[in-house]
């Protein structure tokens, strides 16, 4: 499936910012066998004084930009063409949940894809007894790791309410869970905390959703802005799978990956250090349109 992705993020400051430095993770990823970045352009306005590109530990593209002059607005635009490949069907070849620990213990690598990065508390995701108990209540003896991921994701989709006002970008997983409300970021981080709580390595994925669904299917929640979902490690044979708890589905052709990490902090689209005195507001608009398919 081929997509054209267009995104625009603007930040406006009440009073001009004296300068700033930002690390941007906005360009779609190149993931062999899964996703190909055919072309991608990230433009920044006003033009930054400096700009440099980097690849972070988890393999995500990053762009560092520096502003030195006064500015009261910044605009980031992404124009990209991305090809998304069909993934093998979700045949469950994962071990029993109880057997996952032994497979992890044999793991002797800290490569970016190693499950070992994704097993414990990270800065924004700390499993709590409440979340772990919730997760345990939705699995049973003998359940496979993959089924456990699905069961917990579905339960969350059922029990949580999508509410753009209930949380902010800084809200921790346990706080959002206590309210049973939030946006895709909260859904994802809660699910990650639950999976880690029962010993399933789980990470955070940021990305886009196609804007309009194929005919006859409902429009997905989160299609107007950047989206987030979960990846979980289901054993040596099955490896990583991705699940979108905000929409209750296993990720396939409708999702486009930007970045992967342990939690939002590893992939935050715009991480910035700037000196401003007043408030700031931001807006974003996203269009993900299939190419040449007539939609």
């Amino acid at each position, binding site marked *: 499936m081929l997509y054209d992705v267009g995104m625009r993020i603007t930040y406006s400051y009440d009073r001009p910012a004296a300068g700033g430095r930002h690390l941007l993770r906005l360009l779609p990823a190149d993931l062999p066998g899964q996703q190909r970045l055919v072309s991608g352009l990230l433009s920044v306005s006003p033009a930054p004084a400096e700009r440099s590109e980097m690849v972070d530990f988890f393999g995500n593209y990053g762009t*560092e930009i*520096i502003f030195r002059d006064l500015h009261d607005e910044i605009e980031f635009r992404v124009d990209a063409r991305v090809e998304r490949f069909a993934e093998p069907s979700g045949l469950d070849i994962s071990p029993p949940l109880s057997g996952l620990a032994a497979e992890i213990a044999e793991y002797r690598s800290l490569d970016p894809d190693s499950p070992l990065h994704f*097993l414990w508390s990270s800065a924004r995701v700390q499993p709590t007894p409440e979340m772990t108990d919730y997760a345990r209540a939705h699995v049973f003896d003998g359940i496979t790791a993959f089924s456990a991921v699905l069961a917990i994701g579905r339960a969350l989709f059922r029990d949580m309410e999508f509410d753009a006002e209930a949380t902010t970008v800084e809200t921790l997983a346990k706080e959002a869970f206590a309210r049973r409300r939030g946006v895709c970021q909260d859904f994802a981080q809660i699910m990650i905390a639950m999976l880690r709580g029962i010993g399933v390595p789980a990470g955070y994925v940021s990305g886009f959703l196609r804007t309009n669904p194929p005919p006859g299917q409902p429009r997905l929640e989160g299609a107007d802005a950047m989206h987030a979902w979960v990846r979980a490690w289901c054993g040596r044979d099955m490896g990583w799978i991705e699940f979108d708890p905000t929409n209750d589905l296993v990720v396939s052709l409708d999702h486009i990956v930007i970045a992967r990490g342990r939690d939002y902090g590893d992939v935050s689209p715009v*991480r910035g250090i700037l000196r401003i005195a007043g408030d700031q507001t931001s807006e974003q608009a996203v269009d993900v349109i299939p190419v040449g398919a007539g939609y």
Partner: protein
Amino acid sequence: MRPRDGLAAQDAIARLLADYHPLPGVADELLDQTGRIRPVWERFMAHLAALPPEELSARFARGDQYLRDAGVFFRQYGDDNSSERAWPLSHIPVLIDEAEWNTVAEGLIQRADLLEAVVADLYGPNRLVGTGQLPATLVGRSPEWLRPLVGVPPRSGHHLHFLAFELGRGPDGTWWVLGDRAQAPSGAGFALENRMATARVFAELYAEANAHRLAGFFRTFRDALHGLCEDHREPRVAILTPGPLNDTYFEHAYIARYLGFMLLEGEDLTVEKGHVMVRTVGGLMPIDVLWRRLDAAFADPLELNSGSRIGTPGLVGAVRRGNVSLVNALGSGILETRALLAFLPRISMALRGEPLRIPNIATWWCGQPVERAHVRANAARMMIGSALSTRLPFDLDSATGIGGQGRGPEEIDAWIESEGPALVGQEAVTLSTTPAHVDGRLVPRPMSLRAFLVRTARGWEVMPGGFARIGRTPDPTAIAMQRGGSAADVWILGPGPTQSVTMLPEPSVAQPRLKQGALPSRAGDNLFWLGRYIERAEGMMRLLRAHHIRLAETGDPDAPLLTYLDRHLGDVGLDPGQEIPDGLRATLSAATSSAGQVRDRFSTDGWMALNDLSRTARRMAGTARAGDDCARAMGVLLRKITGFSGLVHENMYRFTGWRFLVIGRAMERSMEMAGLLAWLGAPDAPDGALDLAIEIGDSVMTHRRRYAAATTRETVIDLLALDGMNPRAILYQMGEVRNQVALLPGADVNGQLSRLSREVMRLHTDVATQLPEGLDTDALLDLRDRLFDLSGLLSETYLG
């Protein structure tokens, strides 16, 4: 010692040792197992025994006085606050025989090389994890394994350049490594201060005791850091500190002064085009080497801990591009992980084919079944705590304790079983004891010793000395200074005289001199404000003194002149109803806080004078009574504050920093005087206001001598605003500002005056060409506004 004195001397030593009883099963530094004094201590003990008690007390006091005079302190953290405490020196040094020390040093060098190999692997090929030498979970879970630094080779080729090892001596007399300090080891500067003080206490003995000197080590260290610079002719080395609230900030400031490095905080630095630059009053200046005393996670909010407010955004990027050397490399803190001690002995065999020459404290990681079982079975004799903690074994925290601290055996079992991979068991340390002088008696106290190593072009060099911690009680866990322990000097004694080395340059070595203008903007800002606050406080004292003298004279708080003056007091933030107003004390503490930010550029005498001033004001606040008493109190404070100003003027080198201090002071004085004259010289001011202005302006006698006539508005304005010879006058102070601004970096560019220079010149000329009758209240207030703007322009130009 003459033979016939021998017996008496023996008696004296015996008396000295009357209360010295090492515990059974514990090694003692002074006495061997048979209770005899070890050879290395003989001479010292004879000397000590020969000193009468009152002489000894006087000498201890001399050492303490040195530390107080040098301003040595450490910061102690309480439940909800922290405070500066006097340095707790245990006056008796720890003595170690040179031959023994050399063996220790060889072992430490071996360990330092091993640690370099480990950290290079953890941030490089990660073979230790791949081959199972190190559990992947331990590394992956550590907050000190900094992913952004993985795959980033250090520019110098090495991660580690300066290391410390905490050592203890076990019951059988062998040395053990208790912990490795690789992140940002502290203590070397304190070791130097302990030496300075202890050498004063035992001056004659030290001079002939064949103790190795420390200065050579510091020179080696300085040269090593210079050697890391890309351009050896112009080394740009700085110390990066978390700031004055850090518990070892004194050491940062002290060692910066001692080694001649700039002391910087994260906000002093910025990264431009991938290069680390320091913001100085002369503009951005590149930095080549940073000796960081800041934990790596806080060093860069952009790529590391985003909550850090003490870091430099972009620092990791500069490291990645190979444009700066950090001592030690960001990420080295992983080596301090407690659980690593469980694996280092095997890693040494695997990587280097040799066993550790100095063992480390026995450690078992509870992530493995056999080790877990061992810890459970021996829990009562172990310290069990976090596997990933980087604290030293005796820095017990709430989650660590011998035998699991108050937990029952079943609880410990459950704890270890449920949280195994997060825990380690470590053999409870039994440290050796060393003499401490407590309440006039010599008693054995547990001791641990921190040794320091620096990497040179020829390999590691070990400081011939160290920093000893002495326990407050016989309990080895009470050794941390936060828990009341003390510190002692360490003498490595050789058989013959040691080479004496000082920090003075050898004639053949070209000494790099830092360029003028290498004043960080933040330091300049603090000095400028120090000048302003000090002058503001002085002005307040003069106003308050005048108020209380009037009050004492008239006894009538409602007299017109007094109420008129009190309105001005209110305008400058003083409540005339308070004896020592809060506004004055707040100004003094603002001055102290500005000075506290630039301790490395500030003489100890100046610092103490400032603290004395605040203390005195605080004390007076409780006792002074309105009227005469308060007027006298203000007199005392005025004499103290002029004492401080005298120090600044007579003793401070005319660095750029001094100029900012002087400019701040002159600007503040001009603004104050403009405000005072606008008020007291106003047409509707009550009788006596003009004389009051002369009094507050400290110019009574001059006025009498210069103007035969009675006091008029013209004579007052002439003397206090327009007189170029009166240091109280605005014109005089504007001249001072003009002179100093002309000497600042960038004052003129290719013969063209800078904007600031032009504005200063214009204002000075405007004042100089004024006539008294032209300078009415409106003109004075306008002048004050222009001075405010000038202060803003100065900040914008140099200090922003």
